């Protein structure tokens, strides 16, 4: 109980400190320069520097399994890996922000400040070991996001999506909090480690505790867009500026899954069979909802949003696997790997969408891609790689990540979930192929926006190459992840 902040704890939270400082630099400069933006590239550089520093600190200090600040934070494998994935995804998104018409230029410093704060929230979220910390991390991340979306230069859809996201997010937060209150009430604890000691008994005997857990799970399901709590996703993803969508689809999803994983992977929860059964059905419903709805979308971002929902369904399989397996490492590592692969592909895809947006209120339809392959063969090829990879076709990263996920699921006897997963992959092929069809098989004059999109293009190509090649050598990578979780 007696607490003093020692050096060790401070070292552990250096990534957050780095992010916080980095977030303040551009806005401070702006203030000092008398409310005049510095060069955006400088702002971006400062932000990326902060992220790189955070990543570096995370690599150096994180992953030791140590806890900090009286067990409210933990820095273990999940923290480290998920943190790295989220940070890189966020870095990618920030490059997009730098060049996207609806985010660049005016107020870029504020945007970077908010983004970095959001990332800070993410860092708290993935390392939180206390329900309160999870809540605070979640709120810090979300509130920044609401504001980021609201700040978009696009005035109509972005505002609407920000508001929708905000109301539904707060609604879900209330539910989440209510759940925490029940868990706290029935166990007297909010710390996950201490909860673990009592869960086994409580979940069997105490309806209230179970109740609370369900509410918490529902709160997470909302954040990671599991059907039927997914309804915000397509609207918000479509309305938000594309870089923010990329940010939400990757970094936010990664950290939400990290926290979700942490809760679910507290194995005693399996004492409630029904809870896991319900989760399995949620996974199935999510896959179906995401994939079937995506078939009919003409807006690329919306299609990717539904695809993101579908991927949440696949990921939930992994989370469930982690929850029921004797050592959660297989499931957890497959989830981490899947998130990594998914982030890579999604950042790349959204980067291309971002590149093709001519003005701030231009929304990209699938038909707008016609003939793109002829105009920009390399970018088109990259996009095709992302699509094939998202569909899970070998030898791309997407296939291997799905393989690991299903492997873990089947290993735990969840064959029927794996079968649902693969059946849904078939459905998904249809809509993932549509942009490819458009780009390669239709005549057209589509091109990227005329503005300079050098950094974005680099991002696309790099992610595409990684997507194509990392799969083949992913074995050691997965082993590394897995070994760090034990």
């Amino acid at each position, binding site marked *: *109980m007696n607490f003093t902040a020692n050096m060790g704890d401070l070292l552990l939270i250096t990534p957050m400190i780095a992010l*916080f400082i980095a977030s303040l630099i551009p806005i401070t400069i702006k203030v000092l320069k008398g409310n005049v933006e510095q060069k955006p590239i400088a702002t971006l550089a400062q932000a990326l520097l902060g992220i790189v520093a955070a990543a570096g600190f995370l690599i150096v200090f994180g992953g030791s399994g140590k806890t900090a600040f009286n067990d409210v934070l933990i820095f273990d494998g999940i923290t480290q890996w998920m943190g790295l994935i989220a940070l890189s995804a966020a870095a990618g998104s920030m490059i997009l922000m730098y060049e996207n018409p609806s985010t660049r230029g005016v107020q870029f410093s*504020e945007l970077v400040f908010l983004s970095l704060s959001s990332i800070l929230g993410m860092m708290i979220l993935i390392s939180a070991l206390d329900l309160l910390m999870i809540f605070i991390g979640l709120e810090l991340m979300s509130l920044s996001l609401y504001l980021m979306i609201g700040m978009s230069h696009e005035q109509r859809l972005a505002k609407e999506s920000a508001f929708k996201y905000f109301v539904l997010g707060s609604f879900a937060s209330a539910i989440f909090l209510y759940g925490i209150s029940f868990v706290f009430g029935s166990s007297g604890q909010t710390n996950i480690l201490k909860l673990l000691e009592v869960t086994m008994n409580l979940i069997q005997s105490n309806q209230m505790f179970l109740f609370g857990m369900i509410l918490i799970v529902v709160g997470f399901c909302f954040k990671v867009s599991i059907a039927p709590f997914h309804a915000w996703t397509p609207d918000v993803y479509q309305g938000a500026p594309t870089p923010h969508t990329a940010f939400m689809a990757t970094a936010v999803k990664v950290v939400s899954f990290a926290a979700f994983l942490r809760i679910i992977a507290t194995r005693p929860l399996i004492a409630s069979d029904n809870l896991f059964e319900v989760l399995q059905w949620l996974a199935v419903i999510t896959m179906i909802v995401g994939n079937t709805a995506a078939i009919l979308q003409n807006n690329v971002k919306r299609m990717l949003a539904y695809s993101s929902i579908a991927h949440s369904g696949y990921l939930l399989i992994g989370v469930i696997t982690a929850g029921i397996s004797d050592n959660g490492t297989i499931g957890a590592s497959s989830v981490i790997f899947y998130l990594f692969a998914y982030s890579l592909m999604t950042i790349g895809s959204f980067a291309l969408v971002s590149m093709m947006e001519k003005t701030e209120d231009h929304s990209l339809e699938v038909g707008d891609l016609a003939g793109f392959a002829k105009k920009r063969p390399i970018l088109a090829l990259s996009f095709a790689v992302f699509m094939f990879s998202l569909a899970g076709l070998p030898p791309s990263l997407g296939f291997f990540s799905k393989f690991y996920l299903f492997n873990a699921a089947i290993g735990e006897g969840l064959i029927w979930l794996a079968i649902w997963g693969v059946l849904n992959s078939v459905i998904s092929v249809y809509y993932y192929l549509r942009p490819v069809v458009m780009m390669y098989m239709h005549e057209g004059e589509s091109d990227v926006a005329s503005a300079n999109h050098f950094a974005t293009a680099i991002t696309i190509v790099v992610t595409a190459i990684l997507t194509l090649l990392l799969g083949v050598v992913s074995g050691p990578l997965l082993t590394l992840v897995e070994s760090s979780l034990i």
Partner: protein
Amino acid sequence: MTADAFLFWFLALITIGGASLVILMKNPIYSALALVFTMCGIAALFVTLDAFFVAGVQIIVYAGAVMVLFVMVLMLFDLKHEVEAFSKGRITGAIKLATAGLLAGLVMGAIFYSSTAVDTVITKQLAAASGDPSKQLGMRLFTQHIFAFEALGILLLVVAVGAVALARSKGGTHHDQR
């Protein structure tokens, strides 16, 4: 009926009544006022639960600051033409009511089913540490929850900066910033 009980039922009436008014009143100003009532009621309930400090904060933060903000915004908009307060759709409306009702029912069910368990928890717990609850709260806040507290600070900073940025953004209140 003891004084405690009477107080509870009275405050319950106020809060539930206030809450009902919040959602029933067509005019948002009335809703806001009803919310203030509810919040005060809840603050009073906090007092019955020996949480004096929190009760004070509740009054100051909620009934004071937050509600003022709401009323300010309402005044700012000066909305008069809202004819319908509730969204249309009988079936969806019924479903929505049923959902909320069921949720409440489920919570009650859970509470009843676990009342024994709750009781054991209560008996098991040690008596509150002696001393001033506020001091105790402060101690706890700045030791155990120091990190959360710092994070909260950042959060408030973010909200402050963000709200300003939002207001100055394109489509925000200050069009001249373009």
